[in-house]
């Protein structure tokens, strides 16, 4: 797999070299390897097939059918093969496209903000300028332990117009805060995501910073670089792989946004029931399964494309 910039690849080169000259000894060796690997690989492979591969194939298969009823439709429906009809419908469905746009916007704004914050906090903690860094680390990491729906529930109570202590507190000092208006909703959701995931990403970047060798930093210091400059021009480039990884997982995470908006709906009735692509797909899960499957497949393809493009972009800018 070439997509992961930090991939392991210990045996890759050797394997490739071997493949080029198939002599009997090698074939025997590989037969032995297969025999040895099977007991280890079988449990995972069976489950992986059942839980990942077959469902995806099944989704694609199902998405080629449409629910077909006749008349008043008071009898059971017959699925009918209709090729890409569902895909055409989804790509012309303003609600589905709208949900994609919304999530794209949320991701485009929230992911950079969150990662920059995480990077800054990681650098501050790593610089050990302030005491008590261990406690800060625990506190920042804490939100990650809360299930997304619980976080959503909690923030909903804090966003709720009229009931929230935050809203009432702001009102008391003359600020009219609405967290649930159409315009504010994306930002309210972004806030929950940032709250929940900044610490998590901070830890990733921080543990990457921890492994930067002393001599590199010391060399920079000897060259007369200030602490800020060292952080920016020496440390940050070195933790780039970690940042890229957090970015990719954040993109994937945003694309599957579901829990937070679903729990917020109780206090924000204007949050439409197809606010995100996953919500949109699940909406017709019981009544029109093939269409739900179509949306799921489309989303998977889009995420794959986005990840690939992102990796390509970040790789081209690689200085080394």
């Amino acid at each position: 797999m070439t997509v992961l910039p930090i991939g392991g690849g210990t045996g890759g080169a050797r394997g490739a070299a071997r493949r080029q000259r198939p002599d009997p000894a090698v074939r025997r060796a590989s037969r032995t390897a297969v025999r040895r690997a099977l007991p280890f690989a079988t449990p995972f492979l069976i489950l992986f097939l059942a839980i990942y591969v077959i469902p995806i194939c099944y989704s694609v298969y199902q998405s080629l059918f449409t629910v077909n009823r006749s008349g008043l439709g008071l009898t059971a429906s017959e699925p009918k093969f209709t090729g890409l009809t569902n895909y055409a419908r989804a790509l012309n469905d303003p609600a589905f496209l709208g949900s994609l746009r919304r999530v794209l916007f949320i991701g485009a704004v929230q992911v950079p903000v969150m990662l920059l914050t995480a990077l800054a906090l990681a650098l501050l903690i790593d610089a050990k300028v302030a005491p008590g860094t261990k406690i800060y680390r625990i506190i920042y990491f804490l939100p990650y332990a809360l299930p997304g729906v619980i976080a959503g529930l909690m923030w909903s109570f804090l966003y709720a117009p009229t009931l929230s202590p935050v809203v009432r507190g702001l009102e008391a000092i003359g600020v009219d805060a609405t967290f649930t208006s159409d315009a504010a909703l994306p930002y309210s959701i972004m806030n929950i995501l940032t709250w929940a995931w900044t610490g998590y990403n901070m830890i990733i970047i921080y543990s990457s910073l921890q492994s930067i060798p002393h001599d590199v930093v010391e060399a920079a210091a000897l060259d007369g670089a200030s602490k800020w400059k060292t952080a920016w021009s020496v440390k940050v480039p070195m933790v780039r792989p970690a940042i890229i990884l957090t970015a990719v997982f954040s993109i994937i995470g945003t694309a599957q946004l579901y829990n937070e908006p679903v729990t917020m709906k109780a206090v924000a009735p204007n949050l439409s029931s197809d606010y995100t692509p996953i919500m949109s797909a699940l909406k017709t899960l019981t009544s029109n399964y093939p269409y739900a499957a179509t949306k799921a497949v489309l989303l998977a393809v889009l995420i794959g494309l986005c990840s690939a493009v992102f990796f390509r972009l970040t790789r081209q800018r690689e200085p080394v």
Partner: protein
Amino acid sequence: MRFTRKAAAIAAGATALALCLAACGSGGKGTKGGATTKNGTPVSIVWWGWAPGYEEAAAAFNAAHTDVQLKFETISAGTQGGYDKMLTAVKAGNAPCLGQVGAETFTSFVAQGALEDVSEHLSGAADKFPEAAWKTVSLDKAIFGVPVDSGTMGLFYRADLFQQHGLAVPTTWDEFKAAGKKLHEADPTKYIANLPTDAYNYSGYAWQAGAAWFSAADDAWSVTIDSAENTKVADFWQSMVDEGIVSTFPSWDAALNAAWSDGTVLSEVGAVWTAGILESEAKASSGKWAVAPMPRWPGSDAVGNVGGSPNAVLKGCKNPKEAAAAALWLSTESASLEPMIAKGGLYPASTAGQALPIMKQGREFFGGQAIFEVFAQESAHVNPAWQWGPVMTVTSSALSDGLGKVGLKSGTIADALKGAQTKTVEEIEAQGYALK
């Protein structure tokens, strides 16, 4: 009906005896398993629902029966996931035998093949219900369940605050709006009512006005959610929103409950079961509420209806006969209906239920008013011409989405209706129904 307590005692004794017999029997000739199980252990019927009072009704049923036992499980309200849950279970083949399926969703469930035709087990049951109520569970000759309650609408209002602000109880919508205006001018923090953001709560206003959403004729559906009649109703509510007369709290939210409790919102034009909601959610204002007939449109005496939930026999039920009989018992026996009426404010659908003495009793929350007498009179005026559609999950979520935007002025009720119309038509076409 009259012998409940005695019957319950006998039943309890009989249950104990039966259990003992079953246990003792299994020791002796346990090898003939099949027959022993059938005779010894009662048939267990699982029942899903969310209406208040159902749990007590199930207990009453169990006390009165030895051969069949109900197992009631509370689930999320239908539109909040309960229906999906039932459909999931039906697909999996492990659905409960009985489920609370609102009248509005009944057609959609039938269309998805999720219900069992139990007409052969319910012959003669139709006589026990008014024709309109029975219509909700039957389609052609098929019968899929038994109606429990109806959702005749009325005006729930804060008698104390109406008096305090010198408001007369409105009998027409124009008066209602005028009262709202007067109230709001006197005290801008108060609202006469709340605009529902729940599609079904809203549907009652359309129902009253005869503004049909669906009709089925010549084997084809027609969808008229954004018709001229519907726009009229929408415009009326929209004008109240624009003038700030009504509040726009989300339906079913704590904020609305608080607004009812503290007198921010003075009335609710809703179905009879709203009584149960108010009693549990606005406890602080107990004794201060009253009920009046629903305000009327000019030149019409029609009343709206919201919900009313039959118990449906779900597809895959292994004991449809017992399930149907249990559903009938639940809807017609006083032991079952009384807790539903007392706790949930449900207005029974069966003729026997409507004649119960409890229906004439005053309710503490409403200052001792016998509110069901109002609904008894009003139910005769419920507009009989209303048809629900085949893709109600899509319709209702689209409409609720739209209504949710009205309060923030990012959409109008008319927009909401248009959105629901478009999405419904789209879904109906995509699924291949005939459309006119």
